[in-house]
């Protein structure tokens, strides 16, 4: 797979470390109500879709940026690549 890095252009996926579902960007507030349930969901439960999946890739063998990649898990087609820092909180 080639990941079209927003700053560096197309890079081989093997330069990256895969960190899974992009829900990890939205860490629950530990002071919120039901924070125990929210952290169980955050830490362990995944939608794991067959189809479009938003996920985090870390460019360890490159510029060490975190990318938010939208990819189809059935075809391995990469639909969109963004810098995670540009999307946080959106």
């Amino acid at each position, binding site marked *: *797979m080639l990941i079209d890095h927003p700053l560096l252009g197309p890079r*081989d*996926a*093997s330069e990256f470390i*895969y*960190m*899974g*579902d992009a829900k990890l960007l939205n860490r629950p507030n530990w002071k919120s109500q039901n924070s*125990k349930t929210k952290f*169980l*969901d955050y*830490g*362990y*439960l*995944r*939608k*794991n*879709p*067959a189809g479009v*999946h938003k*996920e985090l890739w870390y460019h360890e063998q490159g510029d060490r940026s975190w990318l938010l990649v939208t*990819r189809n*898990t*059935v*075809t*391995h087609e990469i639909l969109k690549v963004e810098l995670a820092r540009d999307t946080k909180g959106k």
Partner: protein
Amino acid sequence: MKYSGFKVLWEGLKGNTGWKPLWRNPDPKKNYDIIIVGGGGHGLATAYYLAEKFKITNIAVVEKGWLGSGNIGRNTTIIRSNYLLPQNQPFYEFSLKLWENLEQELNYNSMVSQRGVLNIFHSDSQRDAFVRRGNAMLMSGADASLLGVDALKKLVPFLDFQNSRFPIKGALWQPRGGTVRHDAVAWGYAKEADSRGVDIIENCETTNFLIKNGRCYGVETTKGVIKSKKVGVCVAGSSSQVMGKIGINLPIESHVLQAFVSEGLKPVIPGVITFGAGHFYVSQSNKGGLVFGGDIDGYNSYAQRGNLPVIEDVCEGGVALMPMIGRARLLRTWGGIMDMSMDGSPIIDKTKIRNLYFNGGWCYGGFKATPASGFCYAHLLATDKPYNDAKDFLFNRFERGRLIDEKGQGNQPNLH
């Protein structure tokens, strides 16, 4: 149908005209006591043990494709019980004991071949870890011994003992480990379940569950509605898809694992060998092909095919361990979808929906677990209580912080 040496001879004389299909091809009835969703190794084993040990025979196994079309037909066929943790090791030893008696019990030649499993180590600290693991194995009643370089050289003289980066220091040896003809496991369980009255319904996809007041009372399928008192889901890589139909998120990611087979070679590899410095394991099939594998690709996938970097990595591991295979040609590669759980260990448990049960999260270790998984799931379905050797494989271990994490990697499925 009973198999025997005499029957083989007799059929040979009759031109093999007397063999019959191993299972019927029934239409689904309207009602069952138990429906098993997923006709793979684990689902068929569950149906068999329900019928044989728990005397429940009004069962349907519904399978989306053809019988055994998933991971039971895609794995690298290794059986072993060389785990470390007390929640895991007795379960896998129970499984190995069931394997040892499987052919007699099913009257079916699944070619259980206990040629031994070697885990090679390359450093002092790795040796210490394997000593600890070997002791854990012995405590569960399994067999294990530590081999030094001299003993290892007698068994497998072709390894690269003097490798300058990863010199071989010895191995953990489980003589009772080995390989099994994987498809025959599915066929054998199907034959014996069917002969006890279990309906195996192929090409019948489960499209939804029938749920009322928090209770499950059947499934909707592409062959119509089928009702039952209990439903057991057992669908490996499709777990999240199936449970997602009723909004249950699982502690599971689906990943692709590739497997490989070389062209047929003369007998050279005596048992199963695993590389301690990279991820590579190999055995030789009865047809002569080297059957090997390594890491999962590492990203969520339902594609049943992987990518080239992992093929390169696995082959590099193989050549580093045994340079002699460098000129063997790769014949085939394929991929299967693994239900990678958050701690690398499986789940056999009830769900929050009453009468709906779940078995999954086997990561890429599900094949060796097939008999015990079927037995323990059957126990849970029949009695509503977990079987003792599987009593820790519960959903709530994640919220209770009681993870069963063999490698200590944390909640990162692609590292298990």
